[in-house]
């Protein structure tokens, strides 16, 4: 394949990665934006989503489509429940103190990861795609399911945007983000909003995990890369800025996809990590963000 088609393939791969990253990073960004909490276990919610998807779909081995549909509903709900539990038992009790919360979520990361290791095992397991068709381009065939992922992710992003911008619940969430004290004075149950946001963030990551699992097998360590990429996305896009997060997700998803096809992924990651650290040092509100202190 010559360069042009190769690039096109890389862009397609990058687009899939970008949409999935957008979902995952959005979850992290919401949690940070509203609760001012950095959830280091966010990648594990992604991983749980994928692993539970495997578990659910293996209950209905005859019909991959049905299994996948069930997974798409059940898995995020279950992960949301886990997140709620973590919030109630741990984060709320710490009063969301920044440093203590990070340490606690690191603990949560290990707990979730190792529990999955114990019950699911160290092996990567595939999940059949609900639909398998190939789209035939002039230079290569491309998995139709990946295009479905793009469509589904786009739909979910739109739905989340609608939820946040056009519904009362979304208004309540944005009010709490903007000024917690005033929100409380207006009778908004801030603690419940926080629980809700934390669960929503986890569910977004879980859905991303479900969508990706037919493409990339479910494995107990699969949460670490999405975590790093989401971090990079949220920091570069600007802590607290949803628009910035989305823009950054596309930039990073696309470039990660393209770079990984042409260059060493390890080198790409090194550069990305250093870049993020430097952005955080020299431009603390990210490249686009307007973080409220």
């Amino acid at each position, binding site marked *: 394949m010559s360069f042009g088609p190769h690039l096109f393939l890389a862009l397609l791969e990058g687009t899939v990665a970008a949409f999935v990253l957008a979902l995952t990073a959005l979850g992290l960004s919401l949690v940070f934006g509203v609760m001012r909490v950095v959830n280091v276990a966010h990648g594990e919610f992604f991983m749980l989503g994928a692993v539970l998807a495997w578990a659910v779909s293996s209950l209905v081995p005859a019909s991959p489509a049905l299994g996948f549909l069930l997974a798409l509903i059940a898995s995020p709900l279950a992960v949301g429940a886990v997140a709620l539990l973590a919030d109630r038992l741990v984060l709320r009790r710490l009063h969301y103190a920044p440093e203590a919360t990070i340490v606690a979520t690191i603990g949560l990361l290990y707990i979730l990861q190792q529990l999955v290791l114990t019950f699911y095992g160290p092996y990567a397991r595939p999940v059949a795609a609900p639909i398998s068709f190939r789209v035939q381009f002039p230079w290569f065939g491309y998995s139709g399911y990946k295009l479905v992922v793009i469509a589904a992710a786009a739909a979910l992003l739109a739905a989340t945007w609608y939820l946040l911008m056009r519904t009362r619940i979304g208004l309540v969430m944005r009010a709490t983000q903007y000024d917690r004290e005033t929100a409380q004075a207006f009778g908004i149950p801030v603690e419940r909003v926080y629980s809700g946001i934390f669960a929503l963030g986890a569910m977004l990551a879980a859905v991303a995990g479900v969508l990706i699992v037919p493409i990339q097998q479910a494995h107990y360590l699969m949460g670490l890369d999405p975590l790093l990429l989401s971090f990079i996305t949220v920091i570069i896009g600007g802590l607290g800025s949803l628009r910035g997060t989305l823009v950054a997700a596309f930039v990073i998803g696309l470039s990660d996809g393209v770079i990984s096809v042409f260059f060493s992924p390890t080198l790409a990651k090194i550069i990305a*990590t250093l870049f993020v650290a*430097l952005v955080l040092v020299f431009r603390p509100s990210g490249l686009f963000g307007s973080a409220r202190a």
Partner: protein
Amino acid sequence: MRSGTGRALLLHLAVLAVLFGLQFVLPDYHHRSFARILVLASYAVGYNLLLGYTGLLSLGHAMLFAAGLYGAGLAVQHLAIDAASGFVLGILSGLALALVVGLVALRTSGVAFMIVTLMFSQAAFLTTLYFSAVTRGDEGFTLPAAARQYAIGDLFFDLTDPGTRYNLALLLFGACLMASFALVRSPMGRVLVAIRENEPRTVMLGYHTFRYKLLALAASGAISGAAGAAYALLFSYVGSTFASIQYSILPLLWVLLGGVGTTLGPLIGTLLMFYLIDTISGYTSAYLLVVGLALVLLVLLFPKGILGTVRAKAAPWLP
């Protein structure tokens, strides 16, 4: 003399004496474990300097430990340098890296500092993988036994001998412990604690707090590098795992458990956690679950740690 210094000094010397005596009664397996624990506890002492005394929570100390590990290991392996020079090189590597990272990272604080140190450490970890031609990446390499002998005049040190290993590890730990004890009682130590308690006020008392934080990080880096170098030279294995996030989280855990901001806390935390993980590993490969649970429980219920609680409840003179 500062009140309580006599008692505290006696306590520290007693602990070292007990550790020295233990080598004659410990069965083989525990004898080897203790040597390891003492080196790792030195790493924890270095970490505590930054967290417990200066109040800076770093999530990237693995890169400093690894700087010492690889600094000594690569030099001995590829440049045929002797063990003692390798050790010094390891310390200098940790110190240098800490200074470079500190000049950039110390412009941030709190959560941002945690993330920045995490990112730098990740980059360092990935670098050990990227240059796997030299470092052998994940697989790592072992130092040949010949490299682990050292002679000064008539004295001959064989680092493969368990007795030598134990005593060198104890020497390292003792030096780090007493250095941290001295620092903590010194005027500089007082400034570090002040920075932890109320940095703006410390600035307004005429202290260039950035410089002090950098010094603390440099000292922490030197100690962590020394521990890493010792680990390579005494236990012969050098690998990427030691640069991974796990080795940044472990000292945090050891220090939290033993007591943040206490000189002896790191030893207790390392000792307990080592045996806890050791025991659990006998039953399952998911021993990191214990690490996770411990972190959550400590932060939620027991933030002062063991010696921290003892100090608060019964012994305010404990440094």
